[in-house]
């Protein structure tokens, strides 16, 4: 029988994959993709809680909708930033973005 903890475990695995990508990717766009994976895992958790334990199930799904909206805004601005950096500095490698380091 599939229950709450199954969904939470899938969310945990997806979050760990996203975190691994976030820490180990060299390309700025791949880092953005990993952040999207982590946001999705959080959404799975919220919807699972709303389905199985919430006293107000609508609130969990409303939270997820807000996260989806913020993630869409984030990826639009993030890609615009990546393109702006690429145009100015000719790189999307995170390792080379160390101008504040001294």
């Amino acid at each position: 029988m599939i229950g709450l903890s199954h969904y939470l475990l899938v969310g945990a695995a997806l979050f760990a994959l996203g975190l691994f990508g976030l820490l180990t990717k060299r390309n700025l766009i791949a880092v953005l993709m990993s952040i999207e994976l982590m946001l999705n895992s959080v959404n799975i958790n919220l919807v699972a809680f709303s389905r199985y334990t919430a006293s107000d199930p609508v609130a969990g799904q409303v939270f997820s909708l807000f996260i989806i909206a913020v993630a869409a805004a984030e990826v639009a601005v993030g890609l615009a930033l990546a393109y702006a950096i690429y145009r100015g500095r000719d790189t999307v490698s995170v390792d080379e973005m160390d101008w504040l380091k001294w």
Partner: protein
Amino acid sequence: MESTGLMHTLAFFLLSGITLAAAAGVVFKRNLVHSAFLLSVTFLGVAGLYMTLEAEFLAAVQALVYSGAVAVLVVIGVMLTHREDMSCSNPPNKMIVAGGLAALAIVGVLVWAVLGTAWNTGKGGIVDAGDIGRRFLTDFAPPFEAVALLLLAALIGAVVLFKGGKEQS
């Protein structure tokens, strides 16, 4: 939940397998274009998981916004920022051991917490789109307006950043 049966179990394992395999592909593939398309598959798998949770409206939003808009944006981003060889466009950096350890630590803590908690299931329930819409127009109206403003600001900001300006020197 008693209403779930064998179909639900099968659908859950199939969809979570697709989702996690595609997510692993996003992280481990060396070609950024493959990663971008597998990201779309991941989003569709998550939409399927929402269907198994009986959150149909959210599944539709997920398929439209993530698999439609976000994945297309990412593919356009890949297209605009690459001119060299695509086959090794997504390499890992030097942090691979430390990052792997951090991810394993996180998943260990999360699995321990999930399995060690006595979840108080039995409340919760199925939400239809009408409920969500009514709540958006009553007690969630202020955050709804705030998100509308945020989307407008992000749209304008993205256009300004893409268009670019002269760097002050």
